[in-house]
């Protein structure tokens, strides 16, 4: 236990990296998820199909494989494009960017499933009524669709977020100095890996526990006026 206290500084640093990685990926995944959800519900066949291909692809490829492909392959690809066009000569994707891009891309697919279900759960009559009183599509989304969508999407959204937090651990494999990486190197140098891994598990449990609490509060806010069974 003393050893972990001694190394608290680097563990806290790692935790901050993990949290910022998770939050940024979440933001990206929400944007991609909304785009994906509307693509999947689009009246145009081609766009609908693209949305479906996106979710199908992400569901079938493991996250670490995609992450390595983006981190190692993307780097080479960008350099090759730069070499061919002569616009830039060498570009380095850092691990943080690769992590955010990959996690955002992956969870964007799960979010689009979540949002699609939530949009479908809103009675179509409400949207028609909103259009009939002269709201613009933007207003319909902001005033009618969004508040109810959040309510319907929240349970599945919470679940996605918890899975996302846990997935951030994988970036340590491509060398980002997140919580797991820092704890691993500290544990290795002190020969106390078990204690450090237990500490890491504790931190993750605290993060997930706190976000559970927070999202329950959000749920209460958006569930105003709904009778619960």
């Amino acid at each position, binding site marked *: 236990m003393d050893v972990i206290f001694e190394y608290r500084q680097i563990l806290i640093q790692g935790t901050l990296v993990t949290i910022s990685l998770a939050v940024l990926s979440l933001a990206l995944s929400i944007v991609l998820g909304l785009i994906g959800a509307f693509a999947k519900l689009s*009246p145009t066949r081609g766009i609908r199909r693209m949305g479906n291909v996106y979710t199908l*692809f992400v*569901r*079938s*490829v*493991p*996250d*670490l*494989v*995609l992450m*390595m*492909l983006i981190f*190692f*392959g993307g*780097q*080479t*690809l960008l350099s*090759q494009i730069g070499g061919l066009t002569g616009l830039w000569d060498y570009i380095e994707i850092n691990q943080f960017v690769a992590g955010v891009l990959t996690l955002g891309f992956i969870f964007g697919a799960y979010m689009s499933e979540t949002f699609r279900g939530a949009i*479908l759960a809103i*009675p*179509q*009559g409400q*949207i028609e009524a909103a259009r009939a009183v002269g709201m613009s599509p933007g207003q319909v989304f902001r005033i009618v669709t969004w508040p109810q969508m959040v309510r319907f999407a929240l349970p599945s959204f919470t679940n996605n977020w*918890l899975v996302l937090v*846990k*997935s*951030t*651990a*994988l970036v*340590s*494999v491509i060398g980002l100095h997140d919580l*797991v990486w820092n704890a*691993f190197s500290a*544990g*290795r140098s002190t*020969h*106390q*890996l*078990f*204690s450090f*891994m*237990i500490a*890491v*598990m504790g931190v*993750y*449990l605290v993060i*997930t*526990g706190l976000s559970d609490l927070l999202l329950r509060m959000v749920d209460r806010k958006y569930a105003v006026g709904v009778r619960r069974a």
Partner: protein
Amino acid sequence: MNPERSFYEYLESFSENQSPIDFVLIYDNLGRFFDGALVTLQLTFLALLVGGLIAVPLAIARAYRKPFLSPAIRVYTYVFCGTPLLVQVYLFYFGLGQFTTVQESFLWDPILSNPWWCVIIAFTLNTAAYTTEFLRGAIEATPHGEVEAAKACGMSPFTRMRLVILPNAFRRALPAYSNEVIFTLHGSVIASTVTLQDLLGVGRWLNGRYYLAYEGFLTAMMFYMAIVFLITFAFKMAEKRFLGHLRPRETSVPGTANIAARVARLDHHSQNLR
């Protein structure tokens, strides 16, 4: 002319002249990828099998709120569902060596110092935790009438569990279980971080050996996609067989006309198949 040879020659010229990806290298190492796929499948299904066997009694204890047992199981599932699988694997593979008693025990040499065993233990405990929780939900969702009817027929609690509650709970859990199988497969890539040569491990080896950026990962990706499609297809068939009575016949919610039409078309199609 030998067609095999000409295909290889075609691949060679295509890789050299047109493609940024070296297909010859992939073709030459395809055998290794199949070996890797075997390791991946072995890890996945062994973990699922043992994890599933552990999960059934735990889920029953949870669903019937056995005192002491149920909270203890909840702590176990909470910890294993709430922390990353990677950390769990590290805990078993790297962590246990911290204790000299473990290092000196009879289990160390054959099992606990071996990455394959550590990965299997971590995967099994992980999938057992997830399976316990959704199986508990499925058991709790048993309609009370079914239990009453079974009691009225004079079934003992054990028979009731065996013939009524569990079979129906398994049916209800089937869609969730298909997700769990895919997640376990996706999780199995973590084996490559502790030196095992699974599919991703082979991909990383190939890239490291020839100093490549895409080939190994792309090939591994294709293999994973193929496996997931096969699993999804198998579960579709299973759901059709076991959950056929729940399939929507006709959807008439306005606004979902598109989807309704698609479901109807699918329905029509599947009826034609039969």
